[in-house]
């Protein structure tokens, strides 16, 4: 019994970041800065994290799904800027009404599943490219103005975003 309780405490201590994030969202939804709202949010988020850890994942939640605060902020700002710039570059195609679209197969340098998924979702979010299918680290991308036959097929991937994720993957591998 004692070891059981100690393992629960260890599991909650490993997930302190995600619990604080959930408490912040709870306070935002209730719209009060009071002790009662904070305690209720703490109770609810500890229950949620405990049950998810125990019955759904059977693994550490935070190490599997959180990519680090600084990496997250830098990635979000770069993604926002990329969306804006591509949005301006798409406008002449709308006004003229002509488009040349094609499906291209290309390959990323990332190997981790979660990071490849994040990269594919941000490729979909920028105007001009949509990810159609993914198998391992090979992506099928539907692209506007595709690179010609003799050019590099990797031109459809945003290089700067991939570089941020590559740096994070290397540091995580060294730590583990």
């Amino acid at each position: 019994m004692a070891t059981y309780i100690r393992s629960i405490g260890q599991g909650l201590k490993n997930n302190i970041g995600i619990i604080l994030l959930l408490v912040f969202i709870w306070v935002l939804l209730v719209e009060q800065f009071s002790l009662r709202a904070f305690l209720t949010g703490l109770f609810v988020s500890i229950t949620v994290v405990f049950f998810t850890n125990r019955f759904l994942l059977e693994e550490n939640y935070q190490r599997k799904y959180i990519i680090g605060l600084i990496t997250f902020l830098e990635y979000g700002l770069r993604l926002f800027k990329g969306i804006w710039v591509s949005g301006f570059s798409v406008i002449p195609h709308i006004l003229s009404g002509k488009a040349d679209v094609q499906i291209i197969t290309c390959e990323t340098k990332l190997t981790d599943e979660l990071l490849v998924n994040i990269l594919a979702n941000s490729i979909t979010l920028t105007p001009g490219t949509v990810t159609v299918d993914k198998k391992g680290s090979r992506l099928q991308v539907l692209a506007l103005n595709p690179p010609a036959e003799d050019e590099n097929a990797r031109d459809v991937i945003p290089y700067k975003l991939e570089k941020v994720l590559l740096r994070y993957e290397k540091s995580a591998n060294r730590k583990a």
Partner: protein
Amino acid sequence: MSQWITLAGNIIIIIGLVFMTLGVLGIYRFNDYFSRILITSKVDTVGFLTIMVGFIIKHGLDFFSGKIVLIVALYMITNPIATHAITRSAHISGYRIKKER
């Protein structure tokens, strides 16, 4: 000072409205489905994000803009998954316009 902040918010909202109008205009201009989803739906996303940034600037720092940040985070997570699901369904069902490589 506060009227300058309101003016900046209004200008950003007008830019977002222009993007959204271009998206709705483009939905009638193309002939095949792939061009439509590639250009139109994504320009509409740019308009949505810009209008939300304008409202956050106009409200300042309170619970209202915090909730708008929650809505933007939810939209940025769920919107690419929905677009990918529709396009993958069209691709698997055999909708082709050109030879792929």
